[in-house]
């Protein structure tokens, strides 16, 4: 099926070249970082993780979120997701690849990365994270590719793939739970030391991921003949509504525990993020932007008359995605380091090369996504009817 990726329209190649250009610029920035060290980033002795690890954390969630489509489809036989299941699985693949790249660019000694396998350390959550991420990548490539291959031949998927599908469904939440455990088990980091961290991670992931899937579905429908189906998009919209409500609730629980208990250590990071602490308030504007976007998203999602309007749903999805991207891809990580365990404040903001490297990793993700979606959409355009006999190609 790979050959489908090298036959494309001008627009397809234009996008590929655009992404390659961003990757090129980021790669040069990475060479600079490789030579000088992580000192070219905004990170410091006190804030020792920054946007790289933040993006990694956020993207693990996006990867895990494929399960929100795959589970209803395979376990509950929800046929409307038949058309988009492969889109969800193929979103998980570049997401995991981006996760791995973000870990890689964050390492001080990237050439020693295989030490993690050479000296396996089961008591380290990071070791587990690597194992579950690699496993999840494998499962999604395997399942997505096999199912799409079967669809192309207009044959039912082979029986042996079933167990892998079920394993992938159970595996998806595990990657995000393990990622939450990176944070939730560290003494002296009050902001992260919370039992609800994993639950919060799952809720935000299951909102941000499907939001991105809807946006991608709308883009695919706009630019190709493949139609993901109105109903599939609407159902996914309901999923986002509930998970986003849960996410905001969970954040509220954190606020309650911190501010009702009045324990200074539990309040400090929240105060820093939302109002500023001792005159340091660099993150306040973006945290409020995140909050406003969350309110806008919820407003549009909760009322069915807005949600059913696809343009408004698209706005809601973008608001959800960016709200959570700020909250989890930035605030959550930096907030854990400010103030430091010694109650000192060092602020963090990514530098230009750091930003270019971050953009390049995203561009690599989008490139992989573009290629995978190109293949999937080409197959679907050819097959015309999905396996339930419903038309999946738009009529002119």
């Amino acid at each position, binding site marked *: 099926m790979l050959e489908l990726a090298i036959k494309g329209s001008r627009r397809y190649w234009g996008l590929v070249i655009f992404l390659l250009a961003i990757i090129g610029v980021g790669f040069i920035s990475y060479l600079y970082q490789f030579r000088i060290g992580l000192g070219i980033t905004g990170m410091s002795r006190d804030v020792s*993780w920054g946007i790289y690890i933040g993006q990694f954390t956020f993207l693990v969630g996006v990867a895990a979120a494929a399960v929100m489509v795959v589970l209803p489809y395979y376990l509950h036989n929800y046929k409307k997701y038949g058309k988009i299941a492969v889109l969800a699985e193929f979103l998980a693949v570049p997401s995991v690849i981006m996760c791995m790249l973000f870990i890689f660019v964050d390492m001080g000694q990237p050439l020693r990365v295989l030490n993690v396998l050479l000296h396996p350390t089961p008591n380290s959550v990071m070791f587990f994270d690597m194992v579950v991420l690699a496993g999840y990548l494998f499962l999604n490539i395997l399942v997505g590719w096999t199912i799409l291959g079967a669809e192309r031949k207009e044959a039912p998927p082979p029986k042996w793939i079933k167990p892998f599908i079920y394993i992938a469904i159970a595996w998806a939440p595990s990657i995000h739970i393990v990622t939450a455990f990176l944070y939730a088990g560290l003494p002296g980091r009050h902001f992260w030391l919370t039992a609800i961290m994993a639950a919060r991670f799952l809720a935000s992931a299951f909102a941000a991921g499907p939001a991105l899937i809807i946006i991608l579905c709308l883009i695919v429908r706009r630019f190709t003949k493949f139609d993901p189906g109105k109903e599939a998009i609407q159902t996914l919209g309901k999923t986002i509504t509930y998970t986003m409500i849960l996410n905001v609730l969970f954040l509220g629980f954190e606020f309650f525990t911190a501010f009702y208990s009045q324990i200074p250590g539990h309040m400090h990071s929240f105060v820093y993020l939302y109002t500023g602490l001792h005159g340091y308030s660099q993150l306040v504007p973006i945290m409020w932007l995140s909050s406003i976007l969350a309110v806008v998203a919820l407003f549009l999602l909760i009322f069915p008359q807005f949600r059913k309007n696809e343009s408004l749903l698209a706005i809601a999805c973008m608001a959800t995605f960016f709200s959570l991207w700020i909250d989890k891809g930035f605030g959550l990580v930096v907030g854990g380091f400010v103030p430091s365990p010694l109650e000192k404040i060092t602020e963090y903001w990514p530098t230009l090369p750091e930003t270019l490297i971050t953009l390049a990793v995203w561009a690599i993700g989008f490139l992989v996504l573009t290629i995978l979606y190109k293949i999937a959409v080409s197959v679907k355009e050819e097959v015309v009817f999905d396996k339930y006999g419903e038309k999946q190609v738009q009529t002119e």
Partner: protein
Amino acid sequence: MSMNRREFLKIAGISTILGLGGVSAVHGLRNRVEASQISPAPKALKAKRWAMVVDMSKFKKEEDYQRCIDACHQVHNVPNITDNPKHEIKWLWKETYEHAFPGTEDEYLSEEIKHLPFLVLCNHCDNPSCVRVCPTKATFKRKSDGIVMMDMHRCIGCRFCMAACPYGARSFNYKDPIPFINEAKKNLEFPTRTKGVVEKCTLCYERLATGLQPACVEASKGALIFGDIEDPNSGVRKVLGARYSFRRRPELGTRPSVYYII
């Protein structure tokens, strides 16, 4: 023997997997062996668990602190990075009471105590969270004497240990440290580090192996008391038995091996 491409790939694939499995099994066994399993020198200082008592009453002048810090940083080639405080590297340093012991300061604590600098370093915890999180065992607790060691050649620079340490005891080489080491005072007996690795106090394991006290202890003129906390007759145990002592953030369960007396 004839073989088609498909069969060849199958056999090649399976042998690769078995080969990799064998290699990791061998490494699994090798990991059980400690890095320095050679018989110690007869002069070497030994203990079941090393500990240190910082007697703050003996730190009176700026010079009393600096002597210890300089001794440590010089003997370990710790770079003196002054151009960007974000990249600072320190193994032993001063921290005022309110920062060294956050959450314990009282509202009407005398300004003198509040701003009193305490000498702080890696606590060589009995239950170290940094060791728990390290994905490569680059930082590990030495079984023989409890020192929390650092293998700077194995460290991949993920900085998970820095997030896990509640004492801010770990520094990361954000850039090449060599230009920041005073060439004239460089200690050729101790390795310098590369960029991209984490470092911290290792309780002068290299000096203990040759029968010397840690550099800071030697320079402290009795203000730092060092010994085996599991030996009831050791200097540290005698001080701890006689005077009121406290540790940094004991509520976290890390069980620090560095004690303070005022």
